[in-house]
């Protein structure tokens, strides 16, 4: 996003801010969904992040990129959203079961399910590093800079998160055989 629009938004131009929201929405939503694993929650967090950005944009010091700052705001909102909704359950999408799954496909589904479970057990800090590094392909240096954490912290968070995911993958799945097609009574 060009500097001009950000500068205009900083001066209170709502039209410019509207352009910012449209231009950056998908980027922030992608990260929010990656962290929260819930579409509705991610959209709520994204919108709240934009409202927080509007609230603080005049305070924000123009020495870092807008993108990096917006990620920081979003991550903070994600923390707040999760804290606010302790009883939150991610709306993981279920695969259609009309078609029987081959064993390799089933294995992939089981693997994804284990990853999903493992990921949900991670702290938001660990999730954030994984999302920025593995989903957005940020280098760890950029992750550290974006989150304003030391590079060593970024490394250790990623390492621990991957360890936790590996442990989750090694746990036996609740279901170890392909699901049988449900017989529907006429």
């Amino acid at each position: 996003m060009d500097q001009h629009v950000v500068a205009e938004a900083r001066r209170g131009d709502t039209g410019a801010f509207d352009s910012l929201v449209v231009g950056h929405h998908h980027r922030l939503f992608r990260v929010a969904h990656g962290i929260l694993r819930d579409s509705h929650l991610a959209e709520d967090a994204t919108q709240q992040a934009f409202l927080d950005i509007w609230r603080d944009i005049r305070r924000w010091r123009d020495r870092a990129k807008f993108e990096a700052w917006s990620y920081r705001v979003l991550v903070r909102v994600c923390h707040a959203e999760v804290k606010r909704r302790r009883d939150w359950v991610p709306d993981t999408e279920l695969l259609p079961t009309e078609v029987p799954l081959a064993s390799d496909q089933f294995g992939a589904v089981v693997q994804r399910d284990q990853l999903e479970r493992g990921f949900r057990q991670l702290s938001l800090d660990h999730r954030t590093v994984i999302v920025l590094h593995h989903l957005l392909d940020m280098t760890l240096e950029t992750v550290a800079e974006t989150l304003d954490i030391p590079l060593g912290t970024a490394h250790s968070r990623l390492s621990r998160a991957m360890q936790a995911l590996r442990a989750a993958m090694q746990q036996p799945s609740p279901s170890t055989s392909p699901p049988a097609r449900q017989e529907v009574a006429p």
Partner: protein
Amino acid sequence: MSDPMTPEVRDWMRRTHAEPPDAQQSARQVMTRLPEVRQRSRWWPLPVLYRRTKAPTAADATDHQSSPIQATNGHAATVTGRTHLMFSPTKAIAVGALVFAIGGVLLVAEPFDQRGDSVPGATEAGPSEPVPFTVRFVPAGSVRAPVSTMEQGVTKIRGDCWAPVIVDPSDPRLAGTLTYCADEDRYGPVQERFDASTDAYQPVGEESLIVGNDTYRIENAQGAWQGSSTFLGWKDPGSGDMLEDRGALVLAGEGAYEGLFVAMTLLPDWSDIRGVIFDGPPPVAPVPPAAE
């Protein structure tokens, strides 16, 4: 990338990526809620507070600490807060007397019966009508870097000058270049902490207090305006926000603006400045009657 799970994790993240909602619709929802959001203004227009100044070292602090007070009852004495008054009645009386004396000298130099408006033949033109105006100042580049020292627990910042940009002056006489200089003393445990959410250095400490004086000078091809004000900043114990009080600022005209004055209100972030350009000086600060 050496972790063997990396490809699996990346693949899983991409495959489970959710389709984002329509950005336009989301933007509309955000914009609908925007009026409910109170924008946090830049709590302090002085860019110096957002910048890393040379933090006083522990040695600085200990070097300037006063000697411990010897307890006479065997208990260890604990000194909290300041140990001397900021306000000195003697100094205040001396300054008042000085102002009074200067006024008297000026009066002697130009007695009433020789003033221009009473000289025969002088034009009887009255003062021009006050002209209200609006303007904004936007903080911008540094002109002179400050020097920060610590004396007896007070951080003194001196010589800081900036060149804020004058935006949208409704009166062309206020257009031009602005130079803003400020000296300030910071009391209490004022330290700066990086706040990632605002990407700025924010002061921390329970008893943060800032007292300062600043000078504004606007210059253009016709002349200049200059004046000073005193500001006060303190940390709100409830919200933790830094609050400030700036009152009003009066600038005196020079060059083509000689004899004109500008009085303006100052909001914390220099937004929506309102004021008036008027003819003649404002009244001199009154001197209270001496106590019986």
